[in-house]
């Protein structure tokens, strides 16, 4: 590593990354470190609940109706806006996924023992998700993603969220039991 053309951009890039991390760390420090209370306040999923309305807005019948009855420029604009809505919804699903993954990381941070395999697996899954999400987003933007497939995905997030909510309730109960046990001792 003796070439200035390698070292200098590397040093600048690493410093830029560090600066960005320091700034984002400053923002996240305002939210506080992981704790029982932060686990309680973490929304597991919220966007998937709006899927019926989105489905209505994106239905093929609506699109057909627009094509047949509205002037071409209005129909084109409406279809473009429908795609933007679907992208926004996908972004919401991404947020739901991120919250669930964050829950996993917070549980890991608050555990006295963690598994190397589990943590590596979650990291790889999160990275893979980012790549896949970008590809799905591109397909949606290009307008060739069927609505049924999006519905399938939403159902999955919904089931996942329900399970996580149940798990969170268990953790809260456990936490309350610990505090009571501590007071009783």
């Amino acid at each position, binding site marked *: *590593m*003796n*070439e200035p053309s390698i*070292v*200098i951009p*590397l*040093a*600048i890039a*690493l*410093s830029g*990354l*560090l*600066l960005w*991390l*320091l700034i984002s*760390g*400053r923002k*996240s*420090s305002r*939210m506080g*470190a*992981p*704790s*029982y209370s*932060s686990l309680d306040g973490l929304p597991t999923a919220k966007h998937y609940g709006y899927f019926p309305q989105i489905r209505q807005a994106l239905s093929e019948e609506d699109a057909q109706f627009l094509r047949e009855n509205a002037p071409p420029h209005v129909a084109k604009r409406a279809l473009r806006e429908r795609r933007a809505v679907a992208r926004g919804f996908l972004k919401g699903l991404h947020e739901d*996924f991120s919250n*669930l*993954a*964050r829950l*996993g*990381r917070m*549980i*890991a*941070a*608050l*555990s*006295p*023992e*963690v*598994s190397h395999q*589990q*943590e590596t*697996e*979650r990291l790889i*899954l*999160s990275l893979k*998700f980012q790549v*896949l999400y970008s*590809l*799905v987003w591109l*397909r949606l933007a290009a307008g060739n993603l069927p609505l049924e497939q999006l519905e*399938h*995905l939403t159902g999955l997030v919904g089931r*996942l969220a329900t*399970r*996580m909510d149940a*798990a969170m309730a268990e*953790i809260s109960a*456990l936490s309350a039991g*610990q505090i009571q046990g501590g007071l009783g001792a």
Partner: protein
Amino acid sequence: MNHLETFLSCSIFAFQVTLCAFLYARKAQRILPFFTAYAIVILVNMIWLWFVYKVFGFLSVTAYFCYWISILVNAGMRSLAIAELCRFKLGAYRGIWGLIWRGLAGLSALFLLHAAFDTWGQPNRFAIYSLTLDRDLEIASVAILAALLLIHNYYGLSLEPLQRTIAAGICFIAATDAIGYTILQHLYTGFLFPIFSGNHSSLWRDLLPYSVRINDLWSTVHVSCFMFTIGIWCYALRKPIPARVEAPELLPSDVYRELSPAINMRLATFNDRLVELLKP
């Protein structure tokens, strides 16, 4: 020493004394013992070098070796201060710390090995060995700090303001030095190397003023950046250091053992669905 070097030396000395005074006043040794030791070592090294220059002369062989040894001692202490920053917050989270310290130690070992190999391949001069080793350690410092902050962000943790400022300062000075040393090393091991390694003493005599000017320029940049860094550390130390935050209440081990595989399984299923979604 010329006037510029004397002025820069006096300024940096004043800054270092101020930093040590702040650290002493804030009792920083209780919370950050290695960083405090680093600040003291750079001050002691400077006083020691000043004596060496006075006794043996600025351009003597002894001064040359002492200078480069002091650079390596500073780099070693800085590494300890970085290790301390790594442990500062993460140490309270026993589970992830057990995992992370191994990763960071492995990364440090890799960088050290790289630095050793890089230094091994340099022309046979002590200054170039030290310069290369220090330059590689500077890059390693920035990379380890970046890895540390990435881990903090990943687990939703954050450094305290003082520790963040220390990290920013170390990063700034390490990046500046890495760039400067790379340029210097490229000059001395590149087209200038044959001039002072072969039988070109008359040519070297002509080039000496230019070499001195390059060194002066680099000293000015390095010392100015270092003073800026010490300035921001002093600024962060203007307020009393908050007491160490109490260790967080940890969850029972069973929670992780039960929930983590379940979460990962669901995340994997989610990714599988996304892959299905992408199939034509």
